[in-house]
């Protein structure tokens, strides 16, 4: 029991992946956009962290920064660190980061059709990590690819392995992407909107598959989504992003049940079905800010129902509000009042 506690605390002290104060800028013809501004989070071995946010909030940029996939030369990391296994991915050359990719950190993408190469058989694409990274022969690599395809639930995999991506349905393509991503048994899987392009029923199947694989392999997962529902069942912790910053983070039940940032509260209130049928939807008024021209102070204040003049004065930093559960952090000067309104 004590040993378990010690192990737990040690694990808590050294997370698998630790992102600290990450800053990413995009140079556009209209000026410099700060896509990420001081993003920090940890991912522990085996856990699932959800990153939630609207388009442009910086959730996908976060994953691109980790995988060295920022579009060059426009996007670049200008500050902060991404610590993995004692290595700062933010400072390593791209080629070194790519070496780690697939073996240690893998990724699946939103659109599984465009993410698969249309002119190669899926077997060859799934076998590619084995051939390129492990130097396996073609036959052996294809045999391993076949196992993976069976594992992710491709029916009739022996025959389908020689098919091309366009011959599969959306859900099957995402399964193939997952097979490719888990080929080299990564310790972290980043799933960037993995079910956004899929039907609702297929969404549930894919999320179930990811959860199964996670239980089998013990890999950690960063689940990026704009859909609070998709995330609710699979993630243990959540980070909510707005205009390139994390504005609320904590255990998922705690955040969902007791949101303490007006934006998070607005998001949860806007879900249809959270209130009685027949009532009008309750969207958050206004639209996300332009990253080239952020409002002064808290970026959310122009849309915030409880904004006060002080909100304009300074960007609020993440803090643990009074009465909040351990690890629940909010970037709002009026967090306590949001909670008491509950």
């Amino acid at each position, binding site marked *: 029991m004590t040993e378990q506690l010690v192990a737990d605390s040690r694990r808590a002290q050294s997370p698998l992946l630790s992102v600290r104060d990450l800053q990413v800028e995009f140079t556009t013809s209209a000026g410099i956009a700060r896509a990420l501004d001081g993003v920090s989070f940890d991912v522990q071995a085996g856990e699932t962290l959800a990153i939630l946010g609207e388009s442009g909030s910086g959730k996908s940029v976060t994953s691109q920064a980790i995988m060295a996939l920022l579009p060059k030369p426009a996007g670049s990391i200008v500050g902060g660190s991404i610590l993995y296994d004692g290595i700062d991915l933010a400072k390593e050359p791209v080629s070194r980061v790519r070496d780690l990719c697939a073996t240690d950190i893998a990724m699946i993408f939103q659109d599984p059709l465009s993410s698969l190469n249309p002119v190669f058989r899926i077997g060859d694409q799934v076998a590619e990590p084995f051939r390129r990274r492990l130097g396996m022969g073609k036959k052996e690599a294809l045999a391993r690819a076949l196992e993976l395809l069976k594992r992710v639930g491709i029916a009739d995999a022996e025959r389908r392995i020689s098919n*091309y991506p366009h011959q599969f349905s959306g859900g099957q393509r995402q399964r193939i992407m997952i097979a490719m991503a888990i080929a080299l048994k990564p310790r972290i899987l980043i799933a960037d909107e993995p079910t956004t392009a899929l039907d609702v029923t297929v969404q549930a199947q894919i999320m179930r598959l990811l959860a199964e694989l996670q239980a089998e392999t013990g890999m950690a997962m960063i689940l990026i989504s704009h859909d609070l529902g998709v995330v609710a069942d699979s993630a243990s912790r959540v980070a909510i992003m707005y205009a390139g910053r994390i504005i609320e983070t904590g255990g998922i039940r705690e955040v969902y049940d007791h949101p303490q940032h007006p934006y998070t509260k607005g998001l949860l209130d806007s879900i249809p079905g959270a209130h009685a049928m027949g009532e009008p939807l309750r969207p958050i008024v206004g639209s996300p800010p332009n990253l080239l021209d952020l409002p002064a102070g808290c970026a959310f204040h122009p849309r915030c129902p409880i904004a006060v003049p002080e909100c304009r004065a300074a960007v609020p930093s993440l803090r643990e509000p009074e009465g909040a559960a351990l690890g629940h952090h909010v970037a709002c000067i009026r967090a306590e009042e949001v909670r008491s309104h509950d």
Partner: protein
Amino acid sequence: MLGYVIRRILLAVFVLWGVSTVVFIIVRLVPADPALLIAGDTATADQLAALRNQMGLDRPPLVQYGSFLGGVVTGDFGSSYTQSVPAMQLVAQALPNTALLAFLAVLGALVVSFPLGVVAAVRVNRPIDRIVTTGSLIVQALPSFWIGVVLLLIFSRTLKWLPSADLTSAQSLILPTTVLALPLIALLTRLIRSGLIEVNGEGYINTARAKGMREPAILFTHAIRNALIPIITVVGLAFGTLLGGAVVTETVFSFPGIGKLLVSSIHVRDYSVVQACVIVIAAAFVLINLLVDLLYAYLDPRVRLAK
């Protein structure tokens, strides 16, 4: 796949029939009497009538059309009246020369434009890319007769390194090949560059990166094949065009090819040779396009399995 091939071949035959018919009609619409041209102004009416009868010109048009089509199928277009040999024989002498020239030009263009396009795409918007892109724009804007004459002046007249005309040695191929290849190099370089840049933004390239593949490996496996698909069409069209119409270049260099044969036959109204040239050129063009379509299907499985 087999059904696709058969469909394409049937279509090619249909196109060739169409071309033959158009050629047949046009030649008969031209306001000149072939018999009069051959016999000359001094011929008597009887001589003309005898000649018309010998050439089959006094028969009904449909009968003429039938025997013409029969000739097309068997490769018999009648005799050249200027050289008194079968028209097909003249074409058969000229075509290999032109084919060699076109093949060398396309091959040279590919060999040169491929690395240029790749380098420009990899170093997009850097100085080397600017030089390559600007250079190809300039080359593409130059007319080929001008390039031909300038190259002749420099390398034949002034430096006396290369022969100026005819097909006498391997060296005599260098200048016409260069003239034909230059605009194609410019075009292909820009196409390969833009194709690679476009493909670079595709999701599967990011997937390959996330799989930990190095950029050169991504470029030469995932990117190239997708970027090449549209380029194949352009190369095929260029090759087909060169087979039929390197007219200007062949004239500038007095190159004994089919383009020069066609033009000189038109000048002297040697209709049987003109007909043979046009139909052979059309056949070559159709054949190349057929090959391009098949290659396309080979490279892009989506084409192969559609329909």
